[in-house]
């Protein structure tokens, strides 16, 4: 069996992703996805699990410090046996470092004093050009000026949409030439994570809207224990 078609069966068993922002739910449930991913061989399954643990928000421990996350990434990424997975992890964590810098600057913080304050090749560049709108990285990261502008405008949803779209399009570009190999499985799983994240935002927005409506409807109404009974 040729390596480029190692996962023909697995990938054919996965329903296609539609467009990211029009999705109302993931193409298959998390349980079903995990079930299908059991077809991966042991090493690839380990690689995918490590990769998702490193880069997906749903997998992050909210109590971990930045330093702990960075140390874990620096320790685990070089051990990933698949170069595609390593490059992708590097790219996502570099992107996250740049967003972190934008948010810090937006809060009025000074440039980081530590040399290794973030992940990847741009940390020193960011420190040196802290006051430039896009840290002079417009060419390497064309999404950065727009992200900075939206953040300055306080458009949080716009920033989130831009970042999700950037990752989605990056994965789409990487998909060229990978149809039934392990890279295609990685791309599918990461896109599934993006859809899951976006659709969960809808859920949260719906809950917030529901709370607002309840508050509006109950405005001026006093609930006493007798009335509730």
């Amino acid at each position, binding site marked *: *069996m*040729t390596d*480029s*078609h190692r996962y*023909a*069966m*697995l*990938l*054919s*068993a*996965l*329903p*296609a992703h539609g467009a990211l922002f029009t999705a109302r739910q993931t193409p298959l449930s998390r349980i079903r996805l995990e079930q*299908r991913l059991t077809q991966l061989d042991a090493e690839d399954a380990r690689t995918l699990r490590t990769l998702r643990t490193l880069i997906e928000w749903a997998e992050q421990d909210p109590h971990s410090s930045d330093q702990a996350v960075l140390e874990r990434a620096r320790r685990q990424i070089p051990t990933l046996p698949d170069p595609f997975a390593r490059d992708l992890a590097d790219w996502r964590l570099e992107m996250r470092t740049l967003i972190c810098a934008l948010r810090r600057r937006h809060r009025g913080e000074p440039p980081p004093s530590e040399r290794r304050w973030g992940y990847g090749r741009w940390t020193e560049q960011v420190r040196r050009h802290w006051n430039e709108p896009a840290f002079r990285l417009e060419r390497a990261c064309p999404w950065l000026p727009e992200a900075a502008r939206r953040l300055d405008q306080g458009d949080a949803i716009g920033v989130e949409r831009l970042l999700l779209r950037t990752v989605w399009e990056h994965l789409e570009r990487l998909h060229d030439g990978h*149809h*039934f190999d392990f890279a295609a499985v990685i791309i599918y799983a990461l896109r599934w994570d993006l859809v899951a994240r976006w659709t969960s935002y809808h859920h949260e927005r719906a809950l917030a809207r529901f709370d607002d409506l309840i508050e509006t409807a109950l405005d001026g109404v006093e609930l006493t224990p007798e009335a509730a009974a």
Partner: protein
Amino acid sequence: MNELVIALGWAGLCGAMALGAIGSIIGCAIAGQAAIGAMVDTDSGYGRYIGISVMPSSQVIYGIVIMFTLQREVTVDTAPALFGIGILAGLALLFSAVRQGQACASAIHASKTKPEIFGLSLAPAAIVEGFAVFAFVFALVLAGGIPA
């Protein structure tokens, strides 16, 4: 030296069929796995997926026909021609079967998501089949020129 030439002649005689069979094995396995995957994800059209997945089996049939066409007494005079035609036609059949299997896997994957492109998605596999037919036909034509 003569023994080696005769051995090569036999290799050519069997080569077209053997290499075609190897290609068909790999091609059908690739397309077959995609077909099984597609059946897991869909509720209908199973026969269609299986039908596409066996397309790369034609190469072994071409190989068998070439082998019978080449079949004659293997001598020092006939062995070089048997080797050249058999091995080269076999290689063409092998690669075409593998690539056709990959094209079929893509066709299955695409038509599962978009059933309306089923026919069009088979065009690449059909074109690859055309090249296998070229190798087959011209191997037969050339085999006619080998002394009996």
